[in-house]
């Protein structure tokens, strides 16, 4: 059986890639995809811990997270599109109407 450390490290790798991508990329769509990677890392954690403890609560939590992430994606993609229609850019640096 693969030990829990392996799953934690995998999830950590995805978390760090996601955080770096979210902070570093200028394209806001890619930022949102990076956040998706972070939530993915969280789900791996939850499912691995769920097996470790022998209860399904972690899996249930992961189900909720997937639902929340879908709701967030709807709202954020809506905002990105609304802004794009006004400003014709999705690059974070070119948002200069307000001071960043």
């Amino acid at each position, binding site marked *: 059986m693969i030990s829990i450390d392996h799953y934690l490290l995998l999830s950590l790798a995805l978390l760090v890639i996601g955080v770096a991508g979210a902070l570093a990329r200028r394209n806001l769509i890619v930022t*949102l995809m990076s956040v998706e990677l*972070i939530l993915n890392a969280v789900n791996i954690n939850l499912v*691995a811990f769920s097996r470790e403890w022998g209860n399904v609560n*972690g899996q249930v939590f992961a189900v909720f*997270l997937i639902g929340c992430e879908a709701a*967030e994606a709807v*709202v954020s993609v809506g*905002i990105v599109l609304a802004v794009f229609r006004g*400003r014709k850019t999705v690059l974070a640096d070119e*948002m200069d109407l307000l001071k960043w």
Partner: protein
Amino acid sequence: MDQLVSWQAVFEQARRDFPSIVPEVMLAVFGLAILFTDGSLNARQKSWNALTAIFGVAFSATALWLMSGVQASTFDNSILVDPFFIFFGLVFLVLTAVVILLSVRTSETEGERQGLQFALMLFAATGMLFAACGNDLVLLFVALEIMATSFYVLSGFLRDDRRSNEGPLKFAVTGIFSSAILAYGFSILYGLAGSTNLAVIAQKIAERHSQWPADSLAYVAFATIAAGILFKIAAAPFHQWVPDALEGAPAGCAAFASIGSAAAGFAVLLRLLLGVFWPLAAAWVWAIAAVAVLSLTIGTFAAITQSNIKRLLAYSSIAQIGYVLLGLVATVNKDGTVSTRGLRAAGYYLLTYSVFATGAFGIVELLRRKGMAADELDDLHGLVRRSPVAAILMLVFLLSLAGVPLTAGFVAKLMVISALVETQHSPLAIVAVLYMLPAVYFYFRMIAAMWAREPGDAMNPAIAWTQELALGAMAATTLAAGIFPEQFVRFAQSSVLRPFLH
């Protein structure tokens, strides 16, 4: 596989436990009612939506008030009804009611979508109330998501203004990012305890801490959760969204998004720090103190340089949050026990701050004319001659924000500072006093603009009666809480978390 659950029992339990969530259900039901009736109202009847919303808040507050004194845990211990919940719930509902009253005229001048706006305000309040009584990681996360998602929408879409787009975009993207980090922390907490219930987790963390004092995974959980929640509170390293979101949004929604999110985040932070993370108190007290001092510094010095009133108030609210966090620091005595004075000070500060800060944002909203946000410092010039009522109300709110005696802000700062001294955090108390001085400068700059400058060609602001009612009540509360603080302090006393007094 055999059936694990008897559905009879599940329904029985849901029926038995239902009374404990009536305040939240009221808000959600009235919010849905607004969505359903909005379509059949014509343009002149749209303000009825506000009436529906106010009724929703009133019913919810009544239900909450009737629960006072109750101590119960329902829905498999995922909901905790206690004085702490009643206190924070009433703060949230007062804030919601005030913001609804303030927004009535705005939506009339802006035309469409006020139905959606009021419905979303009620949904956000539902999330905030659940966040205050949640005792389960899943429930807390969903509650914070409901609140945050409503705020993203509220702060942005309801006005066809260019600037109103970009602020909410930054708010939403950073908000979603912080929720993901918060979720990571929650997943570690689940991993440590094998349960999503905060009581079980608290017990497990305490057990682990007594066996391995350097429980590194618990520290990772604390760091990620604190980062996620401090973002919602808008404390210093996580504050960048506040000025942008506030500048772009209508002032009522802006006040709701920043102050409401801060209050709800603070309720969750209190439950987690004083409950789950209490064994690590020696460590988190320093982290929170650092964040508080950073908030004070950044908020105060950034506010000095601003020429836009909303941005100025946004940065000053970051500094105010610094004081609330100092109150949280003062909950830990040097010998590692809980000081109720610090908790009471933080509760009183949060209660009064949400009143007078919302008031200041409300006055800025009054200056707004159709299609133009009058939120530069110049727009305050000669306000006392254009509208004496608005100027005097603004004076009360600004004096309270600055912490001048006879206002609520003074009593609140005094309570925080004396609690800090009592728990032997004297250096922090000195810092707190010192930062009041530069704050006086920028608040008095606004007062000077209102009284000493010539009005120019600015229009006279028109005040709707609902706004007069809300702003007058807030100013009266600010003064009353400053002159007769005993009642308010006694109310704030109920913010003290009883089950966690170790």
